[in-house]
């Protein structure tokens, strides 16, 4: 009995920390419609600030705590709200998610660049003595745990008091209850949402500072686990109830404590299951927790307050220019390929080979995100499945590498379809979270197994016969890329692509003409996973080894961020993303900067997604095409003239007009001017 209680008590401190972040997640989600994945990164930031001033600069505890938790954390929250999320109020859930993803990628890198390469050992907590032991009857609690108990209790009581007694708390509660009614009652929702962001960022920062001393050194990985645990607790609360988020966090902590206590320490279960419990809990909760599916209906609390911004108009440019740009694009790529084969050094040949492979992987994101409209956070995992399958099958059965690549792709497609069947019931943010949970689970549960990631034995993949030469292999990769790109274009133009377009345009309307949404999306998921698997197998073949490190979940996030920033709708977008992630480190090296900056740049770039859902590249292309087109003879122009940069119009323009009417005002005037030729 005492054992049980001891384990429970050991789990509670972590549970409290999970709960603090979960409260923040629920609060911002309900007040601003943003599921802020960056809270993990913000917790890391506050922990780093505290560490820097407390340990490196030897500040006393109180000023360090005040700076890290009471000043920096809320300030970061305020900045994020003011600079980014306020402008995303009426953006699509996907745009909000992508912005948060960008931050999740960028912020930890900024922190690490700032912290420098040096070790971050000797983290100190906020208690007078971290190692002091306190006895309560039979139970012993140390200083770190005391700090967590006291701070959580104070924080929760303060939150309760704020909600109960302070006017801002009342308004926040009102916004959580019904944002639209609150707006109608004359409450400035912007200000309420700013307070909510500051408050929840404060909780994230507090959690970061409290949890840091439990780890040996500061690493973003631990804070990702913290984030996922908090997401699980928030999912337990169905993203609506703050008290339930608290309960969920503590329950998760207790389960971890119990597992630590009762599972034999050396067993496989204990080794794999305990650290991955948050991932598993999140995955299971998302799929099976009743009420979460109905909670989806309120997924975007503030949508409908303002008219949603217009979707990007269809391209209306002339035939001449369409053909012209395509020829130009192909010519540039052709020159690159020829130069790689003849002029460039073997180093650059390698870079362009990998660029082609990554472009292939990125085409999987073109399918699922660009065409399917879903953000999948497990594309690197599917690539990994393809790579491991290729390596294992070649190794075990001695099959040829080329057919095995296809088997690996098929296997990845099958896993993708299996994941999609339950996950697609969720949709939107929850679908993305389910794929994230899957990616983390796969990485920590399956990859360490011998028959998947090879265990300690490196998984070698031989080069296919006839492709030993690097130039030949490069050509092969380019051919694969071209074939997959052709495939993607055919799917997009075909029935599947049109049905997905319809579903993305309006789910209910697509169903009203008899399109089966689940079938179309499962197909998109499977195709996407298959393409990623093929690319992963190719990457392993190129490197000669299938390494788990190449397919970590962080890459899934990073890939999505890069492709979405540059353009998820088009094949050019994927190809430039492939070139981008290979060339960016070279540019940074040339500029004398750390390669980490590439994550920062792409991560922050993702925030532009809300303004250019078609991608920075596509948006610039359209703008320069419009510029060229205005100078062209009349007969070469497109039907609509494409004078206005499509999709660039902010929501405010639309005013109170319903979307279609607003589009008429803008689009119509242009059409009239050109006589609709």
């Amino acid at each position, binding site marked *: 009995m005492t054992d049980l209680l001891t384990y429970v008590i050991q789990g509670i401190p972590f549970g409290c920390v999970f709960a603090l972040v979960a409260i923040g997640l629920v609060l911002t989600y309900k007040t601003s419609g943003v599921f802020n994945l960056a809270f993990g990164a913000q917790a890391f930031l506050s922990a780093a600030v505290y560490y820097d001033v407390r340990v490196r600069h030897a500040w006393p505890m109180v000023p360090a705590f005040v700076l890290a938790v009471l000043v920096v954390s809320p300030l970061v929250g305020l900045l994020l709200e003011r600079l980014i999320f306020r402008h995303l109020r009426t953006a699509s859930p996907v745009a909000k998610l992508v912005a948060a993803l960008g931050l999740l990628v960028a912020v930890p890198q900024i922190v690490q660049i700032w912290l420098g390469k040096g070790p971050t050992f000797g983290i100190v907590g906020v208690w007078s003595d971290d190692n002091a032991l306190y006895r309560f009857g039979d139970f012993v609690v140390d200083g770190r745990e005391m700090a967590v108990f006291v701070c959580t209790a104070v924080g929760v009581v303060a939150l309760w008091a704020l909600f109960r007694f302070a006017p801002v708390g009342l308004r926040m509660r009102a916004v959580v209850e019904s944002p639209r009614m609150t707006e109608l009652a004359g409450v400035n929702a912007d200000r309420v949402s700013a307070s909510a962001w500051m408050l929840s960022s404060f909780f994230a920062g507090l959690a970061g500072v409290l949890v840091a001393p439990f780890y040996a050194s500061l690493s973003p990985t631990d804070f990702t686990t913290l984030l996922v645990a908090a997401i699980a607790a928030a999912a337990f609360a169905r993203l609506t109830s703050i008290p339930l988020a608290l309960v969920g966090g503590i329950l998760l902590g207790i389960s971890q404590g119990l597992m630590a206590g009762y599972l034999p320490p050396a067993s496989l279960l204990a080794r794999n299951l305990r650290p991955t419990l948050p991932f598993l809990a999140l995955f299971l909760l998302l799929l099976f927790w009743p009420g979460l599916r109905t909670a989806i209906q309120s997924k975007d609390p503030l949508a409908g307050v303002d008219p949603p911004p217009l979707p990007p108009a269809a391209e209306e440019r002339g035939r001449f220019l369409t053909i012209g740009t395509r020829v130009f694009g192909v010519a540039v790529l052709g020159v690159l390929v020829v130069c790689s084969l003849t002029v460039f050094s073997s180093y650059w040949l390698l870079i362009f080979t990998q660029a082609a492979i990554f472009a292939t992987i990125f085409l999987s994101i073109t399918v699922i995100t660009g065409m399917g409209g879903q953000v999948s956070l497990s594309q690197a995992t599917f690539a990994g499945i393809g790579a491991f399958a290729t390596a294992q099958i070649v190794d075990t059965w001695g099959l040829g590498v080329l057919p095995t690549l296809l088997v690996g792709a098929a296997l990845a497609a099958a896993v993708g379809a299996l994941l999609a069947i339950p996950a697609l019931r969720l949709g939107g943010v929850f679908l993305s979270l389910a794929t994230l949970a899957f990616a983390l689970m796969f990485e920590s549960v399956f990859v360490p197994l011998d028959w998947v990631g090879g265990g300690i034995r490196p998984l070698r993949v031989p080069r296919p016969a006839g492709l030993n030469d690097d130039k030949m292999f490069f050509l092969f990769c380019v051919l694969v890329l071209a074939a997959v790109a052709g495939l993607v274009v055919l799917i997009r133009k075909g029935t599947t692509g049109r049905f997905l377009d*319809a579903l993305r345009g309006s789910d209910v309307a697509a169903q009203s003409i*008899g399109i089966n949404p689940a079938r179309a999306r499962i197909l998109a998921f499977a195709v996407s996973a298959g393409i990623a698997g093929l690319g992963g197998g190719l990457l392993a073949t190129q490197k000669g080894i299938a390494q788990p490190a190449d397919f970590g979940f962080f890459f899934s996030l990073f890939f999505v961020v890069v492709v979405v920033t540059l353009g998820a709708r088009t094949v050019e977008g994927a190809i430039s993303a492939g070139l981008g992630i290979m060339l960016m480190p070279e540019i940074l090296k040339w500029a004398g900067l750390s390669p980490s900056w590439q994550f920062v740049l792409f991560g922050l770039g993702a925030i532009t997604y809300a303004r250019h859902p078609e991608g920075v590249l596509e948006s610039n292309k359209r703008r320069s095409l419009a510029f060229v087109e205005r100078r062209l003879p009349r007969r070469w122009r497109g039907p609509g003239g494409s004078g206005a940069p499509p999709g660039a119009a902010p929501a405010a323009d639309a005013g109170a007009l319903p979307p279609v009417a607003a589009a008429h005002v803008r689009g119509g005037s242009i059409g009239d001017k050109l006589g609709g030729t």
Partner: protein
Amino acid sequence: MALLEAEGITKHFAGITALDAVSLTVEPGEAVGLIGPNGAGKTTFFNCLLGILRPDGGTVTLAGRDITRLPTYRRARLGFGRTFQRMELFAGMTVRDHLLVAERSRLGTGRFWKDLLNLSRPTASEQERAEHTLELLGLADVADRPVEALTLGRGRLVEVGRALMTEPKLLLLDEPSSGLDAHETEALAVTLRDVQAARGTAVLLVEHDVEFVRTFATRLYVLDFGTLIAQGTTTEVLTADTVRRAYLGETV
């Protein structure tokens, strides 16, 4: 046999009875109106018919087949076509594409392997049928414009056209006049009547605009607080006392 038979549809929302045993039938080729004040449960009823909400009680039968538990898209394949109160068009697609997508969905000939072999382009007969609908609705001049460039009135016609492409037995119109001015409403009513005469499609119309209903529907149902308070021919119902009370209040 009636085309559509809704029998005792009941729906509760957290203690509130939104629909209390509402029954309604539509005969083949008939134009039926469903009216009622705001909050009467019209949209809830509509959603129960279409499978967007699952009723707590009652059955929906289409041409003798019980469809109460079928998902929305299956009902569409069995003969439901619909338009939306708040326009639901496929952003970025042209008017013609809207019709072609609906046609492909009706035929059910889309196959993934055909996409890969580039065999999925619209066939001549699909193009022809789309052309026919475009002309029927007077949309031929904007056929290749993206839908964002249309007025609300013509946008609603695109919705009608998209629904018609699936050859519905029953067309469900959810407040088709909402957001339209008097002129557009009139034009829509004329077009809808032409379409109904030409195709013999049954229509169930949920509408606020009493004038629109008067000119269009031959039979009416009136909902108030989730219960049917009147039904009968349009003139009968519109002059009935109960209906006037529901709309205009007790004292009049």
